[in-house]
């Protein structure tokens, strides 16, 4: 029994010795690289405001309308390309009453004055690039289509924009 134990111990020492020898002679390095990007932050900066609408009279707000167009402000990694997509309502609602909203338009620019803005279709989204300072501004316009018997009220809905790298 004692001989067996010694034999086992010897074998273990031998095994560890070989392993140690192999670890010393077979080594290599790899580089692990990760690029940390600035988180994307999206803010709903301004609502899409149709103001008054009258029964039977359609009303459009252009995406180029800096006062009434809906606006999102995006910040993130400087000069990074992003993908912009929307969840667009088909109707505005006031209680149980609804009113169609359609003909969405969009403009994106790297400044709040919309200088050099690029038109796009919000239905299909856009693939702009954040500015050198990591900014992007997106405007949305649309058309409200009140029926001739549209009931009085304040009609609202949410427009959702998602931005991903």
């Amino acid at each position: 029994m004692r001989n067996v134990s010694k034999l086992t111990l010897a074998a273990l020492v031998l095994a560890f010795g070989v392993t140690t020898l192999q670890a010393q002679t077979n080594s290599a390095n790899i580089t692990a690289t990760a690029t940390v990007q600035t988180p994307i932050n999206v803010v709903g900066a301004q609502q899409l405001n149709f103001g008054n609408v009258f029964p039977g009279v359609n009303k459009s707000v252009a995406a180029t309308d800096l006062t009434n167009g809906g606006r999102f402000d995006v910040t993130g990694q400087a000069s990074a390309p992003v993908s912009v997509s929307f969840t667009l309502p088909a109707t505005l609602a006031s209680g149980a009453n609804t009113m169609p909203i359609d003909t969405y338009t969009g403009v994106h620019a790297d400044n709040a004055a919309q200088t050099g803005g690029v038109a796009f279709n919000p239905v299909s989204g856009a693939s702009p690039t954040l500015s050198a300072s990591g900014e992007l501004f997106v405007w949305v316009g649309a058309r409200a289509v009140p029926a001739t018997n549209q009931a009085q009220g304040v009609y609202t809905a949410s427009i959702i924009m998602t931005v991903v790298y």
Partner: protein
Amino acid sequence: MRRATRAFAAVLGLALPGRVLAQGTAAIPAEAVVVTVGMAVTTLRDLGFGSVVTGVSTTVQPVAAGAGAWQVSGNPNAFASITFTLPTELTNIQALPGSTMPIAFGAGAALWRRATNDPAGATPFDPATGATGRFGPPPNPNLYIWVGGTVSPAVTAKPGIYQGTIVVSLSYL
């Protein structure tokens, strides 16, 4: 199996924050006010300067008890443009023609407020350029307007009652 689960959870723990950081979402409301109701303008009070002294300007602030005031009833929550036709002088209705008194309106001489008939806390605006106001929500779809001004009677102004007309006009936008 337990180790594998732990390892997977660790990987998820690292990966999920990265996904959150790579995406941003926000919502904005789209809003429209359907207008079906007309307007009615009621004068609540004339702009009164009271007794004034020759050679001394007198100002009535729009929050003062002597300010002119209107109540406009209309479509709940609707937007309306507010404009004025302002006189530049008042005329002595008790003296011979040509006896007048200058009247002026400063940049903050007018106020508007939704629903509440109290000028304290109302929105100031220049009556010369007008403003966009908004009617109150149900059950009080009113818009209140106040106007003040300054009269400057000349040293030689004749005694008497001087009057002019201030016209306020509103229209749905």
